Structures are given as C-alpha cells and as structure tokens.
C-alpha cells in the first residue's frame, strides 16, 4: 500500500484440500467432499452465492473448524488437519474484523508479534512499518471504537499480516464497506497481496472482486466446486450454466445447425463467429439440423448498420449506464438478449434505440453448445 513491504524470505505455502466435507450437527451438509489445490504464492478467489459453503471451506483451511472424518488439509505436504488454528501460522481477516476493543490500534497489530516472542524494539518497528504500509500510522493510539469501517479494515489487514503468516485468509473483507471505499481498498489489497507474495485465499460473493483479485477463481455452489480457472477462463469458458450466469450476463440463442451457420428466428449466425478456441471442449461437431445453442456475453455483440448484421430483432428497452449503453433486444432467439455498446449515445433522444425500433446485431465470438448443455 504506502511503502513497499520488504520481500519475504520464506517460500510461500502450497495448500491441498483432500476430500473435505463438513456436516453440521443439525444435519446441514455445508461442504460436499471438496478437493482443492492452492498453489504456492497465488491469490485464490473463492466465489459463490450466499450460503454455498465458502466460509465453511475457509474455516477448515484456517483450522477454526475440522472436516468430517476422511478429509485432510495439507500445508506443503504436511498433514495439518488436527492442528488448531493457533498452530498453523495463518493470518486471517474476518468479515466483522474481530479487532480487540480492549486494545489500541497499535496493540492490536502488535498482538501476534508479542505471541511470537518478538523483542519489544523490533515489535515497535514492525508495527510502525505495518501501520505506515496501511496508511494508518496517525491512528496508532486510537481505540478501536473510534475508527471508521475502512480504517478498521486496514487495521485488521495490518494485524493479520504483521506476524508474516504463511497463508492469508480473507473472508469477505470488503462487504461491510460502501461501494467507493470498496473499490479503493480492493486495489490496495490487490497490490498488497502481490507485494507480499504470500499464498492467499480471498472469499467473496462479488464476481467483480473475485476476478480483479484472483490469480485463479474457484466458483462454488451448494457446497461443491463448480469450476476452477483463471478469471478469463471462468468468464469466457464457463463450465456450466451456473458459472456462466453467476459471473456475468450470458445471452443464449437456440437454433439449428445449417451449413456454416446457426439458424435462429432472427437470422443466421455464421459459425466463424465462434472462434476455434470456443468449441466446447471434447465435443464433436454435431451434424446439420442438430439443435444447438449459441452463448455470448453482452459485450460480444455490436450494433450493426442496417443490412450488415447477423441477426435482426426489436429493441425493448435501453439504459444509459454512463460508460456504456445497455440494450435489451427480443425477437432474435426465444429469450431476450442483453447487449452493450460503448460510445456517446443517449438512448433518450436516439430514435434507433427507442423501444420498438428494429436493430441489427453482429455477434463477434460465441461458444456453441449442443442444446441443453452448458
């Protein structure tokens, strides 16, 4: 954040989660035999809707909770399943911050160092370094209840990284903050994680946050992992409907394969639009007349001049979002499409985007899937 933190000497930790399930005493199975590898030094974002088991998985890795019999947690190959959190040398940032109200900001940050038995003068130096890095040095002597939400978040981060943990665990650290502050802190956390080089697990239910911060993203649903991949893969090659819809808007046009295109109510989308890399992995190309589905993100379609588009439809509504305009189109497939276009168009005065106006679209790139799949 502020100054550059010195490079860690220790090598980052690799984590392996093996067959970890978690069933609560009331019978709720929050986690369903999860296997997961976290590479040394990477930031892994754990993304999923509320209640999908993110916190449960994080707590298993932290050592705050233990998996059902049979599950194992390995740190650099060493089985730590039975170790309580205080013996795992992990740093943790809680959603509610969990700062100690009986201590000042500086004492909070020094807490873990004291436990490590660090000499007082070194401790003071480290605390100062941390507070400066987080740009909260002037708050050192404040009481916790005299801090704003953003300041508390910074203290919580400083406290967690001060003892140089082998692994940093963050459970929705930004959800309690307002949008603007969240954006600013997200950038700072990103820089911090990169500078530290520590292995980090970042839990969030905000897909933008996950994609911005994660080297890789794990998408979870109902206690299972739906997909693991880079943000690009998750967004552009989602492993299923759930992932596709959870990480952004996905348009779908159903049609039948005919020659070099897909025939749908709005026209023919040439197969060339679906680049070679966008073939569904392992799928054979279905024959003519086979029902298929085209999928594309809103930004993969552009509004075309009359006669230049692949498909034709009707505008049902359009919204000016500031940096872009979102247009809802029907009549192309069986379900309405959402497309986005940049540029300075005011949908309130531009008749071509008025409700009921005809519109033509070119689809830039679109994966193809046999109908019903993906």
């Amino acid at each position, binding site marked *: 954040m502020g100054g550059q933190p010195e490079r860690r000497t220790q090598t980052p930790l690799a984590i392996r989660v093996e067959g970890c399930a978690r069933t609560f005493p009331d019978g709720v199975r929050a986690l369903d035999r999860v296997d997961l590898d976290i590479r040394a030094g990477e930031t892994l974002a754990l993304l999923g809707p509320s209640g999908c088991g993110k916190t449960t998985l994080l707590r298993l890795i932290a050592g705050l909770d233990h998996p059902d019999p049979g599950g194992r947690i390995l740190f650099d190959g060493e089985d730590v399943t039975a170790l309580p*959190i205080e013996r795992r*040398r992990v740093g943790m940032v809680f959603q509610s911050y*969990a700062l100690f109200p*009986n201590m000042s900001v500086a004492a909070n940050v020094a807490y*873990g160092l004291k*436990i490590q038995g660090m000499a007082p003068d070194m401790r003071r130096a480290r605390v100062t370094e941390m507070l400066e890095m987080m740009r909260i040095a002037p708050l050192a002597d404040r009481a916790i209840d005299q801090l704003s939400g953003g300041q508390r978040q910074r203290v919580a981060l400083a406290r967690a990284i001060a003892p140089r943990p082998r692994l940093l665990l963050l459970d929705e650290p930004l959800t309690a903050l307002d949008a603007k502050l969240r954006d600013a802190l997200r950038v700072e956390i990103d820089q911090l994680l990169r500078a530290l080089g520590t292995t980090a697990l970042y839990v969030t239910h905000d897909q933008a946050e996950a994609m911005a911060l994660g080297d890789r993203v794990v998408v979870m649903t109902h206690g299972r992992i739906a997909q693991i991949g880079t943000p690009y893969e998750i967004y552009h090659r989602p492993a299923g409907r759930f992932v596709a819809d959870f990480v952004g808007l996905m348009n779908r046009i159903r049609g039948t394969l005919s020659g070099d295109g897909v025939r749908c109510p709005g026209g023919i989308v040439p197969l060339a639009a679906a680049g070679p890399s966008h073939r569904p992995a392992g799928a054979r190309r279905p024959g003519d007349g086979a029902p298929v589905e085209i999928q594309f993100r809103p930004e993969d379609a552009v509004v075309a001049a009359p006669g230049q588009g692949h498909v034709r439809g009707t505008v049902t509504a359009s919204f000016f979002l500031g940096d872009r305009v979102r247009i809802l189109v029907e009549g192309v497939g069986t379900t309405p499409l959402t497309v986005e276009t940049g540029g300075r168009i005011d949908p309130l005065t531009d008749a071509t985007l008025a409700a009921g106006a005809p519109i033509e679209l070119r689809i830039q790139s679109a994966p193809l899937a046999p109908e019903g799949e993906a």
Partner: protein
Amino acid sequence: MTRSVFRFWLPLGFTLLVSAFLILPVLLSVLAGVTLNWQRGPAGGLTFRWVAEVWGLYADTVLRTLLLAGATAIADLLLGLPLAYVLARHPSRKARLMEELIMLPVAVPGLATALALIILYGGWQSLRGGSVFILIGHVLFTLPFMVRSVLAVLAALDIRTLEEGAASLGAGPWRRLLTVVLPNARPGILAGALMVVTLSVGEFNMTWMLHTPLTKTLPVGLADAYASMRLEIASAYTVVFLLMIVPLLVLMQKAAAAASGGR
C-alpha cells in the same frame, strides 16, 4: 404558555412528587434515628447516641454482612464467569434453557428457596448453624445476576469471533482468556459484582429463614431492632444500613454506565 406548562412544569412537578413519595419515608426514618426523642420531635434535640448504640450492638452483624457479601461475590465470580463464558461461546437452545433455569431462584419467593435449602441441608447441623448456609442461599439468589451481567457484555462483543481472531494470531486458550476474554468482560464483571454485593447486603426473605441468632445479617438485625427496641434505635439502624448501601448503589450506577456507554 400552555405548551410550557405541559412540556415542562407538569412533568417536573410529577417527578418531584414521585421522588418525594419515594424518599420521604427514608428521610423521616433517618431523622428519627438522630433525634433525641421522637415524641418531642427534632426540636427536642439531635444526637448520634442511637447510631453509636446500634454500632455497639450490631458491629459484628455489620461485619458478617460485609464478609458474606464479599464471599457471595467471590463465589458468584468463580461459578458465574465460567458459566457465562460457556453460554456465550455456545449460543444454543440448551444454553438458553440453562440461562432460564438459573433465573429460577429469582422468580421463586426467597422463602420457598430457603425452605428448599433447609429441607436439603437442614439435617446437616454444622452447616445449618453457620454463615455458610446463608452464603449458599445468597449465591443461589444472586448468581443469575452475575451471569446475566457478564453474558450481556460477552454477547454484545461477539466474544467467539474475537477469540478466533486471537487464535489466528497464535494465541492458545489460556492466553485468549487472559488477554481478550477477561479484559473485555471487565465492565460486566464489575457491574455484576456490585449488583451481587448490593443484593446480598439487602437480602431479607431468605436470610430470615436461614439465619440463627448467631448468624444475623443487617436486614435481619433491622427486623430484630424494629421488633424489640425503641423507635429511635431502630431508625438509627436504618441510618447505618443506608451508610453502607448508598455508596454501593452509587458505584453500581457508575459501573453500569461504564459497561453500557464505555463501548
């Protein structure tokens, strides 16, 4: 004009009236305690003779009452702190039930609890005759106040997450207890202890049943004095009692304010 009558003078008058209603009997009693002869009224002269006499007669009772209150507080701390801690760490339905259960001796009349204790321990002569018997009753009656007071503070803090935070920084169970749980529970412990001491000093119903002539406490002695001595001495007793209880009440107010307003 009429508005100020309704919004200021009326409430003020009402408050004063209620205050007078509450305080007047006490004031008169205190006055009687320092009056030479109540038949002739305060005009007949004031004296501390009665107060001194009460002190001479009941000094040991005062001492016993204080020791008992202190012992009650200590016993409540030893029993109540772990209990409150466990309840705060495991907020389950069973825990709620337990909380209700320990409230029982407060809801049941003191006489009934005392009777139950006599039935249970009465045959045990050495216990029945000593102050420890009263201590058991007082602990039974005051424990829920200690537990509730500490539990309220711990629950408001979300002590469980705080402990998890400490554990993530390497703190083992004992260190967490000493550096996080106890310091943060302090306002609740303080308020609870003062409350318990005050309740113990003033407890009459149960103590009256449990005491022997050799183990009187202040309120029991008060009843004794009212029943058997001249009005001035009984009133002087009230003065002694107030001298002990009022500072406690003031401290309690302060502790409660610190516990709620402090954070």
